């Protein structure tokens, strides 16, 4: 498991890419759901 997380020494690059992508998509979804609630659709 720790070997998987280490990504052969590239952990910060690989997880930095995956993490920010996940965060960006999550933020878009949250903002959209808030807008959806406000417009009552």
């Amino acid at each position, binding site marked *: 498991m720790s070997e998987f997380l280490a990504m052969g020494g590239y952990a910060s690059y*690989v997880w930095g*890419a995956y993490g920010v*992508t996940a965060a960006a998509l999550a933020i*878009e979804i949250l903002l*959209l759901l808030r*807008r*959806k609630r406000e*417009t009552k659709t």
Partner: protein
Amino acid sequence: MTTQSIRWFWFASPHTFFPLAGTIARVTAVLAVIFAVAGLYVGLFIAPTDAQQGEAYRIIFIHVPAAWMSMFLYVVMAFWSAIGFAWQTRLSAMMARSLAPTGALFTFIALWTGSLWGKPTWGTWWVWDARLTSELILLFLYFGFMALQAAIDDRRRADRAGALLAIVGVVNIPIIYFSVQWWNTLHQGASVSFSRAPSMAATMFTGMILMALAFWMYSIAVAMVRVRCEIVEEGR
């Protein structure tokens, strides 16, 4: 022979499109999750380690699909802008507006992941080569489209101005796509093309396609929810 015309314009009415958009959003959201789980599994656990780049190459599973989506969404946005510009259909302009934020998001993701991939492989976060620069211009085109829409109060004029920007900006898409052929760039050439077999292991290719499908379904779901908001907001 009886001619039966398909009532395309039936769904051009925001009122009739509204429930359909909700159904599409629900189906594509579920598909996006399924494709993402499958794509991440193949990409992170099944695909072998790259001989040259080690594990750093695994960024490809988000970088390439995000870059594809950033270009594809722009073309779709420009398409709806053009339809709205020509026929003054309200729903077309709403579709264009609904796609812009997601397109900008995938452009940002493509740039961000590319930067994190470039550092360990090229030794630099950023370089002003043709591929990277034209992709950055794409991000500014999305921002320009959204800023223009937000800056003009009159909805009709805002849509026409946005449509013009979107249509003119389409010239940037082939520039991005062919930049690695036209100019001598640090960015590598296409790993996947229509004319030859992909230059990578089958499992790598499968993971990339699954992630592309996930992003595609995600984009449709988000755009459909957003267009429903647009319909309600404009109806007030």
